[in-house]
């Protein structure tokens, strides 16, 4: 376990979002649009939306998003950028993403360390999933080039999230932690640390206890590159089955424990509760956010947290 509770928030990486320390938000999904817009908007510091769900240029969706963005700080989390795609990122996709970012002026923009753009039966395809990367020199260079291009186009730094992966692509030239750290240093992007993804991977593939493996993983990440933390839960898997990162449960006890550890190491990084399937009532989701807030308060007494900033 870590020693001090004096996590440093000084000299942060350019990707860290100034002014968002201690923020906690929740993912906004379809069943909660009304709750978010018509309810009490002081209950969370920000909302995260999935970018592609709002790519439509007309109809009710842009109008709902506009209402949401008028009341909350927005984190734009995309799921389809495919930053690790060796064949590059589709121009039309980036244009739509960029237009959307211009419309809502999000506080953060993020995607995953995964690939998606490829070929299938002689046609261009978007795989529609977060497919795993090889942690190789070539893989790293592809990521760097794509992240650079996206950051130039958007005119800002983005965050890149660690993945839960279900197949082993063999030993790479890098550890995952080295790969992500190097990416952050070479492109000035930040790391979106998904603690649930770490736990899912550890349960599925690690020989040692999951928490131990995850803590060691966190120890290998430089303190200054973490720009956001994601928390989630998953459905327990049957004997001999792989756990699937389905975001269908409350944040697990194990994940809260790991969160405490992460906050001690990285400071009061802006945090998101992610819940996509079998959604609870809006209030229950907000309670999860309150719990994260409480952990930040407990772990970061040594530093002044500017409370709920907004």
């Amino acid at each position, binding site marked *: 376990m870590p020693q001090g509770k004096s996590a440093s928030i000084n000299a942060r990486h350019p990707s860290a979002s100034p002014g968002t320390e201690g923020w906690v938000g929740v993912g906004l999904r379809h069943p909660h649009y009304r709750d978010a817009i018509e309810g009490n908007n002081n209950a969370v510091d920000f909302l995260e939306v999935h970018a592609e769900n709002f790519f439509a240029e007309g109809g009710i969706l842009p109008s*709902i998003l506009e209402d949401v963005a008028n009341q909350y700080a927005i984190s734009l*989390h995309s799921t389809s950028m495919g930053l690790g795609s060796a064949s590059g990122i589709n121009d039309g996709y980036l244009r739509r993403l960029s237009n959307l970012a211009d419309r809502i002026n999000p506080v953060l923009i993020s995607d995953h360390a995964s690939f998606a753009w490829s070929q299938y039966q002689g046609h261009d395809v978007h795989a529609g999933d977060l497919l795993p990367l090889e942690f190789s020199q070539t893989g790293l260079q592809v990521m760097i080039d794509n992240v650079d291009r996206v950051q130039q186009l958007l005119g800002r730094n983005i965050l890149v999230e660690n993945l839960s992966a279900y197949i082993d692509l063999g030993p790479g030239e890098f550890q995952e932690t080295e790969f992500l750290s190097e990416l952050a240093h070479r492109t000035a992007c930040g790391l979106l640390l998904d603690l649930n993804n770490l736990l899912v991977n550890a349960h599925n593939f690690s020989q040692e206890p999951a928490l131990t493996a995850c803590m060691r993983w966190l120890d290998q990440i430089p303190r200054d590159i973490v720009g956001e933390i994601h928390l989630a839960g998953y459905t327990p898997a049957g004997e001999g089955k792989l756990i699937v990162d389905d975001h269908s449960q409350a944040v697990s006890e194990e994940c809260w424990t790991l969160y405490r550890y992460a906050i001690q190491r990285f400071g009061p990084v802006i945090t998101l509760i992610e819940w996509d399937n079998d959604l609870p009532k809006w209030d229950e989701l907000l309670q999860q956010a309150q719990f994260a807030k409480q952990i930040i308060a407990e772990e970061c007494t040594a530093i002044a947290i500017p409370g709920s900033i907004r």
Partner: protein
Amino acid sequence: MNQKQKIASAALALALATAVVAPTHAAGKEKCYGIAEAGQNDCGNLAGTHSCAGQSTVDNDPGEWKLVAKGTCESVGGMLKAEAKKRYEEAKKAKS
């Protein structure tokens, strides 16, 4: 001025006198969150949660695979057929 030009002028006069029915978006939205389509790009993996996840895979050859309806399809089809048949018989009766 030819006939078509006269029509155009009349159309212009009436159109200019017509107001657009202002879309009352603000008032309408309160009730219509439900009509917003659900997000199709969420990142929770559906492999584990879907109610159909346990079912065996369907043969992918569209030539061999048989489309089977398990909703209202059959009853709607039956009603359409019944109506068509009735109309056919009425037409026959009218002729004879």
